[in-house]
Each structure stands twice: as C-alpha cells, then as structure tokens.
C-alpha cells in the first residue's frame, strides 16, 4: 500500500515542489514572498495528506488534510500578514548568511538528509523519499531560524520545521490518530498566536523586531 501511495509520480512531484517552496523561502529577501511561499508549502502538504487519504481510504486523513489547508495555508499566513502590517516592519529581511550561501547550504542539507535516511534502514525505498524530504524541511527550518535576524523569520522557521515533522509523520504512519493530529494543530495555532504576541512585545520594547537586540538582556 505504502509503495503505491508514495511511489506514485504525482506524490513525488508534490514532495519535490514542497522542497522547491522551501527554497523560495531561502532565496527571498521579502517578507511577503516568504509568507506566500510558506502558504504554498502548506497547500502542497495538504494535498499530500489528501492523496494519502484517497489511496488509503481513511476518512480521518481527509479531515487532517482539510485542517492543514485551513490552518496552515490560510489562517497562519493571514496572521503573519496581519503582524507585518500592524507593526509596520521593514519589508526586507536582514540576513546573517547571504542568499547564495544560504541556497548552497540548503542544498547540502538536503543531501545530508538524503544520506541520513538511506543509512538508517527504512522498510521501503519509496517512502524514504518523503522521509528524507521531511528531514530536509526540519533542518532547513532550523537553518532559517539561525540565519535570519527578524523575529518573524524565527517564527516561520519553526513552522517549516513543523511542516517537516508533519510530512515525516504522514509518510511513516499514514496519518497519526486523529486526536493526536488535532492536538498538534491546536498547539501550532496557539504557538503562532503566542509568538505573534511576543513579537508585538519585542517590537514595543526595542522599537524593532531584530532579535539581535535581545543580546542586551544577558546578565
């Protein structure tokens, strides 16, 4: 069954597109386009879940796909755009690592993830493709958190990591129990809200959301 689902060409295409969307975030210096890329990524993720649901015939995965679509592809990007608009942040991202090195590091991370998944024996060769993509998402998300100065990008990075985990979970288990998934969605939503509030507070205290300024807080 799993070969059928993940082996299908359409699935591989979508997973590749997810990786491309990640590179869109890595390669962009505009906040809006980052958020848009994240929305696209979440939409693609929802369609992965939809395909899995279709081929396994389990109705609860449809619900998960729907929730992904609503929360990750619509609500969270909306919250991002709201924050960006409200605190009138400069639309450009300040970087620690420039765009071209970022892209190269992203590529290296994907290669590392691919080898990593190959070296731990996963049952089928085919679902390992999804798994290595999910590993790449996690590590690239972490890398985005490190290399970008704006607090919003840290938030985006952790959401990319979460997407990676979602992909990993769905590729390994064909969807966790509905209750667990619902819990995770709730967590993500609340997390985003809290992080949003924190960004407002940081903005109020430091007059900008550059996390570099937090250095002044050490004792």
């Amino acid at each position, binding site marked *: 069954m799993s070969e059928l689902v993940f082996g299908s060409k359409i699935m591989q295409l979508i997973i590749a597109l997810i990786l491309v969307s990640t590179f869109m975030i890595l390669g962009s210096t505009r906040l809006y386009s980052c958020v848009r890329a994240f929305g696209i990524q979440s939409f693609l993720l929802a369609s992965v879940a939809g395909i899995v649901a279709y081929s396994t015939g389990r109705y609860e995965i449809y619900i998960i796909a729907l929730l992904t679509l609503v929360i990750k592809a619509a609500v969270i990007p909306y919250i991002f755009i709201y924050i960006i608009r409200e605190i009138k942040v400069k639309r450009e991202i300040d970087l*620690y690592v420039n765009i071209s090195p970022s892209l190269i590091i992203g590529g290296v991370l994907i290669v*590392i*993830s691919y*080898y*990593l998944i190959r*070296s*731990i024996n996963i049952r089928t060769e085919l679902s390992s493709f999804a798994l290595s993509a999910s590993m790449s998402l996690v*590590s690239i998300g*972490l*890398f985005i*958190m*490190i*290399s970008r*100065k704006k607090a919003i990008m*840290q938030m985006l990075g952790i959401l990319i990591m979460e997407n990676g985990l979602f992909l990993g979970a769905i590729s390994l288990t064909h969807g966790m129990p509905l209750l667990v998934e619902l819990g995770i969605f709730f967590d993500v939503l609340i997390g985003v809200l809290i992080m949003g509030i924190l960004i407002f507070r940081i903005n109020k205290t430091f007059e900008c959301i550059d*996390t*570099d300024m*937090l*250095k*002044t*807080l*050490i004792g």
Partner: protein
Amino acid sequence: MEYTYLLIGLIISYLIGAASSIILNKKDHLCACAAFISASIASVFGIILSLSVVFGETFTFTLSSSSFLNFGFFVDRLSAFFILLISIAVFAVSIYSIGYAKEYFGKKNIGYLGFLYNIFILSMILVVTANNAVMFLIVWELMSVISYFLVVYEHEKPEVRKAGFIYIVMTHIGTGFIILSFLILASGSGSFDFETFSSTGAAMPQMLKDLVFLFALIGFGAKAGIVPLHIWLPYAHPAAPSNVSALMSGVMIKTAIYMLIRVFFDFLGAGVLWWGVLVLILASASALLGVMYALMEHDIKRLLAYHSVENIGIILIGISVSMIFVSSGYTELAAFGLIAGLYHTVNHAVFKSLLFMGAGSLIYSTHTRNMEDMGGLLKKMPWTGLFFLVGSISISALPPLNGFVSEWLTFQAQLLSINLSDNIIKIAVLSSGAALALTSALAAACFVKAFGISFLALPRSKAVEHAKEGPKSMLFGMGTLSLLCIILGVLPFYFVPVLNSIAAPLVGTTISKVTFDLSLAVFSLRSESISTMWLFLMLFIFLSLPFILALAVGGRTPTKTYDTWGCGQPVTTARNEYTATAFSKPIRMWLGNIYRPHREIQITYAGSPYFKERLTFDAQVEPIFEKYMYEPVAGLVVSVSRILRVIQTGSIHAYLAYIFITLIILFAFVISGGG
C-alpha cells in the same frame, strides 16, 4: 484495609489544610486556624496509623503497578516509627503555630505559609513511606524545595536569602549523591523497588556496595548535617519561621536518618567493619564540633541549630556502633545499639521541637534572636521559661528526663564493645564514648548559658521590658512536648521493648534477655542498670521533704525582700550582668586551637588619648569548614563558570546554532555508520 483509610485520611487532611489556606488567604486569622488545625487533625491520623503498624502488620498500598515501577506506599515498623515521630512533632507544632502565626498577621501572606507548611509535612510523610527509588526521589525533592521556600519565607531580608541559597545548594549536592547511590543499587538489583533493593542489595559485589554506602552517607549526611556537610543548618534554621525550624530541625533531618538506617541495614545487609567505623568517626566529630560551635553562638536559634548537628552525631553514634556489631556478628548487641539510636531520634525530635518553639516564643515577645539582649524573662514568661527549662534539661542529658535515657543507652552500647575481638576497634568505640561524654558536658554548659542568659537576671535591653507570655495555643504546643519529655524519660521501660521490635527485623534478632521492671537494666550479659523512674520519685521525695519539714517543724518565718548581694557593689543595672560571651570565655580559651577566635577592639578618641569617645568590640570565631573547605570549592566553581560563560552570548541565533551543529554532528555520526 483500615490502614488504607487512615493513610488516605492523613493525605487528604494535609491537602485540605493546604487548599483551605490558599482559599482563605485574605483572612489572616481564619486562614491560620484552618491550615494549622487541619495539619494537627492529619497528624492524629498519622499517630493512629503508625501505632497500629508498630503493634500490627506491615502495610503496603499500591497506587499503580507495572512490570517496571510500582508506585505505592510501604509502611513497615521502621517507617511507622518515623511517621509517629513526625506526627507527634507536627501535632504540637501545628497547635503552637495557630498562635505563632500572629507574628506575621498583616505583614506576610499567611495563606502561603499555611500552604507550604501542609505540603512540607505531607512530603515528609511520603518520604518515609515511598516504596521505590523514583517515587522517593520525587517526594524527597519536593520536601527539599518546599522547605527551601519556607526558609526564605521572610525573603525581604538579605541574610535569609543567603541562608536559602546555602541550603538549596547543599541539599542538591546531597540529592545528587543520593541519585548516584540509588542508580547503583538499581543496576545491581534490576529494579527500582525498595523491596528488591532489600532482597538483592546484599548480594551485590563488594565494590558496588562500598560505593552505595559512601554515596548514601554523603547524600543523606548532607541533609542530616553530619560534620563537614553541616554548614547549611546554622543558616537555614534561624532564617525560617520558628514553627518551621522546629519541624526542620526536629523532624526533617530525621528523614535522612531514616534513609541511612534503611540503606545501611535493610538494603546493604550486614556490611563491613570499616563502614561502621567511618560513620562512628564522623558521628563523634559531629557531636563534638556541633556542641563546641553551639557554645560560641549568642543567636538562640543558631545555637539550637548547632545542637542539631550535635544530636545527629549522637544518634549516629548509636547507629554506627550497631553497624560495627552487625558486621562483627553480634546481632543482639547490634539491636541494642540501634535501640539507643532510635531512642535518641525520637527524643531529639521531641526536645528540639520544644526548644525551637521556646525560642520562637522568645522571638515572638521580644523580637530579637540575640540572647545578649534578653534576660529576666522568667518572671515575664513563666510558662515558656518552664518549658524551655524542661527542654534544656533533656538536651543536656540530665536524669530523669528523656535525653538522659537515650544517651545512657548509647553509652552502654559503646561500653558493650568490650565484647568485640579487635582491639583497635574496641579502643575506637570506647574513645567515641569519651567524646560523647565531653559532648554531654559541653551541652549542659551550653544550656546553662542559653537558659541563664535569656531567662534569668535582669532585662538586658529595652526589647525585653514589655515582653508578655504568648497565646495559649503556643503554651499548649510546648506543654505537650514537655510532658512527652518527662514521660519518655521516666517510663523508658515501656518504650524500649517497642523499639526492640522495630530494630529486630533490621539486625535479624531481638534482645531476648531483657528485664524491664522499673529500671533500665538491659543485659544479663554485663548488666548495668539505672532507673530514671526511681530517680524521679526520689527527686520528688527529697525536694518536698525540706518543705514538709519546714512546715511541720519550723512554722512561719518572716520574709524580707532585699536586693541581690553584688559583692559589695550595688547591682542596679543590667550592665553588671554576666554575658553570654563572658560565660563561654573559658571554653573559648580552652579550645582556642579549634575556634581560632578573632578579636578586634576599636577605640575612637575625642581629641586626646585620655578621652575615649567610642569603643567597639568585635569577637568572632573562625568558621573553619567554610573557610578551608567550601570557599576554595566555591571559588573554583565560579572561575570555571566564568570561562564557560563565553558560550552564553545572549543571541538567539547562537543558541539555535548550537542545536543545529549538534544535530549535524549527530547526522554525520549516523551516516558514518556509528548507529
């Protein structure tokens, strides 16, 4: 079945106490009543439960069971004995606290105090009933942390915060060693259950057993206050509210004694000779140094805290003598040593709680802890004075009160070491007897000072002049324990057989040849006997005889009120009085090598050297352990931390990068086939 109800009743009562004090937070008086009355009700449950276990069956109650860990309660006679001890002290102290809490009305949050107080006691009960190492560590930590919050209850004072810091550092060092010790035991026996520990612990390799012994000694020794690890006691006990210090000193440090007995006798089996000798040396050192430093203290609560070190030493002398006997095969003598240790444990819990409550009453009415500022309080607070006197006599080990009985038993246990074959050990145990004798004498001197300076003579400062007796509940609390001091002292022959049955399963035998008439003769082997009962009766008879004679023969004599004779000088002010510093001067000179006293006199002259404007005198005893043992270690830790601080950059990106780098290294490790 009825045990379960009792245990649940006990736990629920403490929880009700905790909850109600939070709910009634706003109303000080009501809140204090609710918190402390429910604590005393819970302690009654505890007393009934423990007595029924001591005279009945071992009791287990499982909360959840799995193949790996069984969370639950395990109450055998030893646990029950400690529940009893905790509950008795809690009963008296809780009733005392109803009055004592008035000290904080309007100044501090009573709900917070009541909440912590109830949870603290509950955690102590759980510590002595936990049935596996994991549960034990959780409740042990709970006890440590809650008691830390109680120590820093008056956190607006900087010295209290310092005391709390020292306490929490020391207690966590101890917990670290406890965890090590339990992990070794668990790996040796294959389970975290205490029952498995005790059934398979003795079969472990000797090296592992030695490690378990050493780690447990350090870990629990830090909580009990054995000498090099005692430094937190003189800070933490004075800093806490007096009712809490009564419990901390009277009861909490006994939980460490409980676990030491558990580990040494139950988990590790018979053990080897050097364990007992090591504990004996440390115990003798604790007893002697504790009382020596107590003599130099003028802060009444610090003085009592040092006496806790001393008494823990005396308790451990009994236990260590028992360990020596067990490892040499004299189980009957070992039972005797353990009885001595347990008897002193309960005695210390009773009289030390009493003395701390007495000190609390003094602070309640005079608002000072310095004995040099007190004086003349016996006339103003007669009942407190009486109760404090009873406690002082007990702790000084004077017959016929309880301290005497247990120290006498400890001496007997030490003297019985002449049965041992090894001469060196024999001499070591007997010289620890000499140390104990010196300790008792110094303790008596110390309490002559403590009682005499604070209660007798004239008031030494304005603080004392308006002192009044505290509320009735405080007197009731102290009175209960005073009565218990007398009962435990005069009727030891009722209690020794009970302790005998508690000690029996731990050493493997009971003392068979015991004669318990009105005297304390224990062994037909080499019998020494003394009867505190008769002493008490004689005391009554001979004290009242002169009065009866005077009344019968002498008739009325005229009374004349006159000043005290002051060697020809008129005694008019308190400045002529003997001070605590002066009282302890001979001992300070005699033991100068240990104290290394440091004196500084500063005179400011007003123009010419004939006119002295101000004279300040400052005398200090050098804190040897802090200066030569802890300060170098603390300095090392601080300098290492300063180096490590480089990685704390304050930048989120750097912290994330640490995670990222770790992740990549782990990836590389997996890819290279390391996994």
